């Protein structure tokens, strides 16, 4: 096991710069997810840690060793690929033993290692099968088994669940997390699915267009997004974002399109009349007689809650979640107000979070 440090790393493919200076510190035994939309550079960063891509500028170290010029096989990392990359002509056991075979580990010793990993993952009955004869979830497990057998310093996962169906994905998510709790190996996990990131990680790195937007524990990202990108990316359904201006005539308030007006809890550190974006999570909206009028467009009951998609007078979409089973009709106008605490305010131009004045 080892810590990983990524120091001001740049990556260019020809003239195109993909990563513009990324720095992340990963502690020994930590489970870190790199999350972001497609093309944000998260997979490239992972492949650079693995040694499959050269580092254009900056440095990456594993443990106390800078690995920029260390060959992939010397880095002692194991990677689980999105398409699993199982060797189709080898049985499950041979796939898992391959790295040990290359190292020249005696057969008996390698069998013990394979058996141990197979037991952890419930693969014992499948050891003599070929990858083609396995289901998606089983292949996924073999790919993980191949990584475990090597007992590496760092596990790298590159969107490992995106080829699985929804139900299996949830199940494998829990299995991977449990596996990490058991093995305590430093893990870097790339995903575009923020729910995977939220549920599995000790620490999330949100990436966007080749830069790091925010690093922090899942709930911190959820509760205090530092900018509009993180606010809109983390959380499902996404945070409601209303454009408007800040007004401070006596009591601080938010003025949005279509006459929307909301009182703000504490006077934020911002001037009168400045453009702001107000963010509020769907679960923090509640029905109130003095709230913003919203026309109900779609009602989505999920069983545990009811999700309402509505439109404000200013024409902005707004999503609200209720644990109560309200029965609204489409076209009906309801009034929503915001619970005072969890309001997020962002700068209208920079998108940065505005902290409330103390």
């Amino acid at each position, binding site marked *: 096991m080892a810590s990983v440090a990524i120091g001001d790393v740049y990556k260019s493919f020809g003239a195109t710069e993909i990563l513009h200076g990324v720095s992340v510190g990963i502690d020994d035994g930590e489970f870190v997810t790199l999350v972001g939309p497609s093309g944000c550079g998260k997979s490239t960063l992972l492949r650079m840690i693995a040694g499959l891509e050269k580092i254009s500028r900056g440095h990456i170290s594993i443990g106390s060793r800078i690995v920029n010029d260390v060959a992939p096989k010397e880095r002692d*990392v*194991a990677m689980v690929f999105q398409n699993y*990359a199982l060797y189709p002509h080898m049985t499950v056991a041979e796939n898992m033993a*391959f790295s040990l075979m290359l190292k020249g580990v005696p057969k008996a010793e390698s069998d013990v290692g394979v058996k141990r990993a197979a037991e952890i993952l419930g693969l014992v009955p499948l050891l003599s099968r*070929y990858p083609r004869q396995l289901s998606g979830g089983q292949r996924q497990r073999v790919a993980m088994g*191949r990584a475990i057998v090597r007992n590496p310093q760092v596990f790298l996962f590159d969107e490992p669940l995106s080829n699985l169906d929804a139900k299996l994905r949830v199940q494998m998510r829990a299995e991977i997390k449990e596996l990490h709790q058991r093995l305590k190996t430093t893990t870097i996990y790339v995903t575009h699915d923020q729910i995977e990131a939220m549920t599995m990680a000790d620490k999330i790195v949100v990436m966007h267009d080749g830069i790091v937007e925010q690093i922090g524990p899942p709930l911190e990202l959820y509760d205090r997004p530092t900018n509009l990108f993180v606010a809109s990316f983390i959380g499902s359904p996404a945070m409601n974002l209303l454009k408007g201006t800040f007004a401070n005539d006596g009591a601080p308030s938010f003025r949005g399109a279509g006459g929307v007006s909301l009182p703000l809890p504490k006077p934020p550190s911002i001037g009168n009349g400045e453009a702001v974006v107000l963010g509020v999570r769907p679960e923090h909206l509640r029905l109130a007689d003095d709230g913003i009028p919203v026309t109900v467009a779609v009602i989505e009951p999920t069983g545990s809650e009811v999700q309402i998609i509505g439109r404000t007078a200013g024409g902005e979409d707004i999503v609200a979640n209720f644990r109560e089973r309200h029965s609204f009709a489409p076209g009906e106008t309801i009034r929503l107000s915001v619970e005072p605490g969890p309001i997020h305010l962002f700068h209208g131009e920079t998108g940065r979070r505005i902290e409330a004045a103390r």
Partner: protein
Amino acid sequence: MAVPSVAVQRRPSILSRLAGSRNALGLGFMLPAAALLLVFLTYPLGLGVWLGFTDTRIGRPGIYIGIENYEYLWSDGVFWLSVFNTLLYTVSASILKFVLGLWLALILNEKLPFKSFFRAVVLLPWVVPTVLSAIAFWWIYDSQFSILSWALQQMGLIDHRINFLGDPTNARASVIAANVWRGIPFVAITLLAGLQTIPQSLYEAATLDGASRWQLFRHVTLPLLTPIIAITMTFSVLFTFTDFQLIYVLTRGGPVNATHLMATLSFQRGIAGGQLGEGAAIAVAMIPFLLAAILFSYFGLQRRRWQQGGGD
């Protein structure tokens, strides 16, 4: 008034009934191909086999003489020499084509500048008509004007011209070399296509697993390429075994029959010598060898165990 219309419905025209029947339609589509095969493959093959049992000569219909032609060939040294030549030619040329073709395919699969240009150039020997390239080789191997002899002499490596096609050993090596030159592109391009079906992530996974370049080739490339190798080499062996044009242009089987293949001997005896029956018998004698090659490929081509089982 309704009666006639019912009758029409009950008896659609024969044409529309045929168009509606899957079997009739299938037969209709198959017929042209089947006719071509019957007329141009099955009939000549059958005729050849029949001629092999007769003493037909050009201009004189023969009579059935049983296996007399084969008995004669059995005791004919030239025939056995041609069998030996054919096997030597096929085996050495195929091995060389495989090794060099695979090597070329591996090089072309790397990231090279002007990759598509090189890939196109490699195909040239295969595209040029055999007779043309054979004539070019005829010049290269010429006893007086050989550019090879000239170049080697200029470099001071030899002091007299090489007798490429006049000496039995040299002649055999020369025709094999020409055949290899012509056959490499086919092997290289098909194997290249096979190489490109191997997912890059397997190489990356194996690299992380600690494989060296040789181990990548030995444990990833080669096993995943075997199905393609089996197909390619089957075709290559069949083409080589039945080669005619190259030999006929370069040596016509000489010197002293040293490069006579079964195909050229069959032509020489059957057409040039007029002994149609005997020529046909030699051609028919190739069939067991070709069948053996096809059987070999049949077992070689069978899906390996790792290729079986559920889809993706």
